[in-house]
């Protein structure tokens, strides 16, 4: 589903964020992405979302090489990638429902469809009763779950998360991770960037570790092979 082939990302002559990164993630696979600050985790996620383009190598998502994707095609790729952020990026000028509905609105879904899918997503994260509230009235964990509902409302085949548990206590973190696990079980490819070593150890999933832009563990072994991150 996601494949990096010899990907290098250089910002300018003396700053190289990623060096010849190779890995592949299968459909339904859940993996962690870890490494020190500035190791290149965010850059890697941005490359998948076409916020950045690689300097060399190829990024392939869903069989499509993103390197030469025309600018106007980018939105259509992003509709297939759900993203969850540490600071969840919710909009406080609208209700929980409207926040979650945004990816559908962008796609031009009909109102009937939108209502049905938003409620399904909110139900999944256990916030169905709070659809009419403003996200500001919710707790940190609830806000994060609204962010997750928004990321999965249009059933994307790929789900990315950048420090999704950064601000949450361990119990809430475990909850969130459970959710991600459920998504991977229904075939969603999930990639979670995190610092939280304890959490990673507890989950026992495949871990991609970046060090100064190099992928030091969990990488190339998968290329061409099956899912071995289980």
């Amino acid at each position, binding site marked *: *589903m996601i494949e990096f082939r010899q990907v290098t990302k250089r910002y300018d002559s003396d700053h190289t964020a990623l060096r010849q990164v190779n890995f592949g993630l299968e459909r339904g696979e859940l993996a962690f992405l870890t490494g020190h*600050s*500035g*190791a290149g*985790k*965010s850059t890697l*996620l*941005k490359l998948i*979302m076409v*916020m*950045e383009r690689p300097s060399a190598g190829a990024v392939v998502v*869903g*069989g*499509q090489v993103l390197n030469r994707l025309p600018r*106007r095609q980018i*939105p*259509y*790729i*992003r*509709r*297939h990638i759900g*993203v969850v*952020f*540490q*600071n969840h*990026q919710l*909009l406080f*000028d609208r209700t929980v429902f409207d926040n979650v509905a*945004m*990816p559908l*609105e*962008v*796609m*031009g*879904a*009909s*109102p009937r*469809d939108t209502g049905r899918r938003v409620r399904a997503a909110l139900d999944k994260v256990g916030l169905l009763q709070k659809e009419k509230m403003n996200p500001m009235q919710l707790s940190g964990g609830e806000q994060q779950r609204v962010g997750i509902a*928004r990321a999965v409302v*249009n*059933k*994307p*085949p*790929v789900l990315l998360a*950048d*420090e999704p548990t950064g601000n949450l206590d361990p119990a809430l973190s475990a909850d969130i991770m459970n959710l991600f696990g459920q998504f991977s079980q229904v075939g969603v490819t999930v990639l979670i*960037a995190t*610092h939280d070593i304890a959490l990673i150890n507890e989950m026992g999933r495949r871990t991609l570790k970046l060090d100064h832009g190099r992928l030091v563990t969990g990488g190339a072994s998968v290329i061409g092979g099956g899912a071995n991150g289980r």
Partner: protein
Amino acid sequence: MAADPRKKSQPARGANKARSPWREQAESYFTHHRKVAEDSARRLWRNPVASLMTWTVMGVALALPVALLLLLTSLQGVSAGWESGARVTAYIELDVPLERARVLGNDIAGDGRVAGVELVDRDQALAEFRASSGLEDALDYLEDNPLPHTLLITPEEGARSTEGVEGLVRFIEGMEGVERVQVDLGWLQRLNAMTDLLARAVWALAILLAAAVVLVIGNTVRLSIESRRDEILVAKLVGGTDSFVRRPFLYTGAWFGLGGGIVALILLQLSLWWLSGPIERLAGLYRSDFSLDGLQFDGALALIIVAMLLGWLGAWVAVKRHLDDMEPGDIAGGG
């Protein structure tokens, strides 16, 4: 910016949802347009003072050139009226007898471009001159009547343009026995030249003010883009196309234009009402039927449409400059 709604639903792969039939797509596209239009209008209402200020600036900038154009149109009407009063005077050579002058007059009257010819014989002319000039004593010293027979020629309606009258003058000048033809076109030409100049000045002013309107709206929309930055970034993040993200701001521009056009109409109507008294009095003094006409319904409609287009254009400039560059990259955060 391709904005065909029906093309939107076809992305790459891993397609996860059944494609809805095009009718439903079109329906939700229009629903979305209406929602965006209503939403941007509501946002303007929510800041009535700021919106009203923008509308007023735009209204003044639009009303000024339109007022000048109206004035110009009225002036051109007046000069056309005066032109119709143009008369050609032909002085017959001194030694031509009255009979011959009468024949000349008939010849000229036979021309298609001439509506009427009046013959003033030299004795009559001298008597009129004596009566009107106050030079009786001086005239008494003259042995002969120095004045020639004169033909006063009124051109036909179709020949009353500057060119038509000039052609007529050349024709009469070419006749035997005609000494000199005089037509007072000079001032008419000067007036025409002046209205032409004024027209160009007004158009130049209109273009400058239109540019100002575009910039004002552009700047206002830029501020509104800044204040909705988060929303734009999230929309782009979840796969909003450029035209999706632009749409609310383009509507905002058009609504600014609508408000500005209405303010301009009100300003025009007010100043017309305020000026109509003095203009009537002035026109009365000149015995002219000059009147300053306001905008008719179609003119008002055109003004509002132009205003909305200008607002839309201003928004488009702002959107082009500030929106397309916005990329959600910076919210993806550190690590």
